[in-house]
């Protein structure tokens, strides 16, 4: 007998007891489905992180400066960081201090007290992606430019909330008072949150960091955004920054530098572990499914003892019988695997779009980042292979039992 005939036999056998076949497959369907869903969602998450990184720039290096003691002694002047960039043009292309503060904001008779004011440099806005390092894009006007920062000009970029609430959407070129100083609005950001609300994500203003430090009344900058000249020089740039900060503080705990690549690696490693754990749990149900197949096959062998006896009396060899049952088990789990894959893809797509919507809005990333849960081809192939493998593995024992039946006893069996 050849493989096609065993296959036909298996299909025939499964069709004669559809309900049982389905219930036998259910374990595999659930197991494979779960694995596909987990991998799809994990994959979607990973892609989203990648996109986000892409939009922030793979050559971004974030440096946190904690200082020494309570952080008020040995303040680091931002000028030192600028000098560092000037001294190492081969690895560093720019830096933006990043400070967040609050101040009283007034337009006409209306005051806003919950607006976050970010003090940055022009480096905060990436020309190639036309977005800030936080992923925001401009709706109108322009971002801060070198000259604005250099001369500490009183210009600002408004978040969508203020642009709407204070100016009714027509903010460009208007004046707004920040901490008692009038600023000219040169740009308006596109809305990035779900709703415009006071104190929300869109309730923000970008000004030059010098002006922000003035508002704060302090020179303490805790975060710097460095740009390496390219993705490849990021690691070298990190060393340069670290060396400089160590020279200054003589203490490795006073600062912390991290490249985007490292960050991505860390996130990916964490997600990888989480995914592995989840897949392992899902794989347990595959194992249970396999045991279910073995159980049913054992019952089936007993029920069909007489059939086995007949086949043997007509000339079926041990391997004929063994193959018949192994292929039947393999076919059962393979069909279960295919159904599981389809089921998993369907659920992943539906759940993915639901979760994706929530996730994207909550993580506050720009509109250029999307989330979609799609299974990898590898995951589909491996799932299918594993389910067939499970059927064959767990089908072997019952099949072997059948193959070894003595034809005389088997023929006499009722």
């Amino acid at each position, binding site marked *: *007998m050849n493989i096609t*005939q065993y296959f036909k036999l298996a299909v*025939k*056998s499964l069709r*004669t007891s559809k309900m049982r076949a389905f219930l036998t497959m259910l374990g595999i369907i659930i197991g494979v489905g779960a694995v596909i869903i987990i991998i799809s969602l994990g994959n979607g998450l990973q892609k989203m992180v990648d996109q986000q990184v892409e939009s922030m720039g793979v050559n971004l290096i974030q440096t946190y400066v904690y200082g020494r003691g309570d952080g008020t002694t040995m303040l680091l002047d931002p000028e030192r960081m600028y000098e560092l960039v000037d001294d190492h043009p081969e690895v560093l292309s720019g830096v933006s201090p990043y400070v967040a503060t609050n101040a009283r904001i007034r337009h006409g008779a209306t005051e806003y007290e919950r607006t976050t004011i970010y003090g940055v440099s022009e480096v905060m806005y990436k020309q190639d992606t036309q977005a800030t390092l936080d992923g925001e894009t401009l709706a109108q006007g322009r971002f801060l430019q070198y000259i604005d920062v250099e001369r500490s000009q009183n210009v600002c970029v408004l978040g969508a909330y203020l642009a709407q609430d204070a100016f009714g959407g027509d903010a460009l070129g208007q004046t707004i008072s920040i901490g008692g100083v009038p600023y000219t609005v040169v740009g308006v950001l596109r809305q990035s949150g779900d709703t415009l609300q006071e104190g929300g994500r869109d309730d923000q203003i970008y000004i030059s960091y010098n002006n922000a430090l003035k508002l704060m009344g302090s020179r303490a900058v805790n975060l710097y955004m460095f740009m390496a000249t390219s993705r490849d020089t990021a690691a070298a740039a990190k060393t340069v920054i670290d060396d400089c900060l160590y020279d200054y503080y003589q203490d490795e705990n006073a600062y912390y530098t991290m490249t985007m690549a490292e960050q991505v690696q860390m996130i990916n490693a964490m997600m990888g572990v989480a995914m592995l754990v989840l897949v392992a749990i899902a794989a347990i149900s595959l194992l249970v499914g396999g045991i279910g197949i073995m159980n049913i096959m054992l019952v089936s062998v007993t029920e069909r003892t*007489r*059939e086995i*006896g*007949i*086949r*043997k*009396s*007509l*000339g*079926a*060899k*041990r*391997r*004929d019988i063994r193959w018949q049952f192994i292929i039947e088990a393999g076919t059962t789990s393979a069909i279960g695997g295919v159904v599981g894959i389809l089921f998993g893809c369907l659920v992943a797509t539906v759940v993915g779009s639901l979760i994706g919507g929530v996730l994207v809005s909550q993580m506050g990333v720009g509109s250029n980042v999307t989330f979609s849960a799609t299974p990898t081809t590898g995951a589909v192939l491996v799932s299918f292979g594993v389910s067939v493998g499970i059927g064959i593995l767990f089908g072997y024992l019952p099949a072997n039992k059948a193959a070894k039946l003595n*034809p*005389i006893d088997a*023929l006499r069996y009722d």
Partner: protein
Amino acid sequence: MGHLIELKDVYKIYPMGDEEVHALDGVSLTIDQGEFVAIVGQSGSGKSTAMNIIGCLDVPTSGTYHLGGIDVSTMGDDQQAEIRNRMLGFIFQQYNLIPKLTVQENVELPLLYAGIGSEERHARAVESLERVGLADKRRHLPSQLSGGQQQRVSIARALAGNPSVILADEPTGALDSRTGREVLGFLQKLNREGDTVVLITHDNSIAVKARRIVRLQDGRIIYDGDAGDPRAVVQPEACGEEAGA
């Protein structure tokens, strides 16, 4: 050319607790091409064991069995399976058709295990079914046929492989007497057409349809000769145990 079937001094001994049961106790028997032999005996006489050994379903404890000149008494499982496939056609009391396969698929089974391609398989199955007059029922399931028809399907299946020996184990046991006679008539017809038929039965009235009778009792042959001889059907009172296997 030797005998088609040649059993020489065959013993089949089963251990049963501390004792041994001699199911066959030194049986020597030859059957030639074209014979119609009935092996008769009460239950416990050893006729089922004889049928298992002749049918290559079992091997003797000692002694030799040559089928078509080949020593099959020391063969392993798979070799025996091949011999069964090539040389033997079984007809069972319970028909032993596979219920979920159609009539034609059942008849094709021995050809399938012989590795014959699908076209030839179909052709030979249909031809076989024509011989038993059931070609028109080939797409039916066994359960849709009467007992007599099912037995004819099993005869067609036995014939399909073109075997050297047709081995019929109580072929009429599950049939009413009229269809039983039909089936016997069929076996006689096959024999007239040249097939070698070995019939195993406990029933003298059926055994006499054969041309030669081999009577077994307690694992020994107590009569071997022409079916027409009155001694062939005499139940020897002296040794008449009510026997259970």
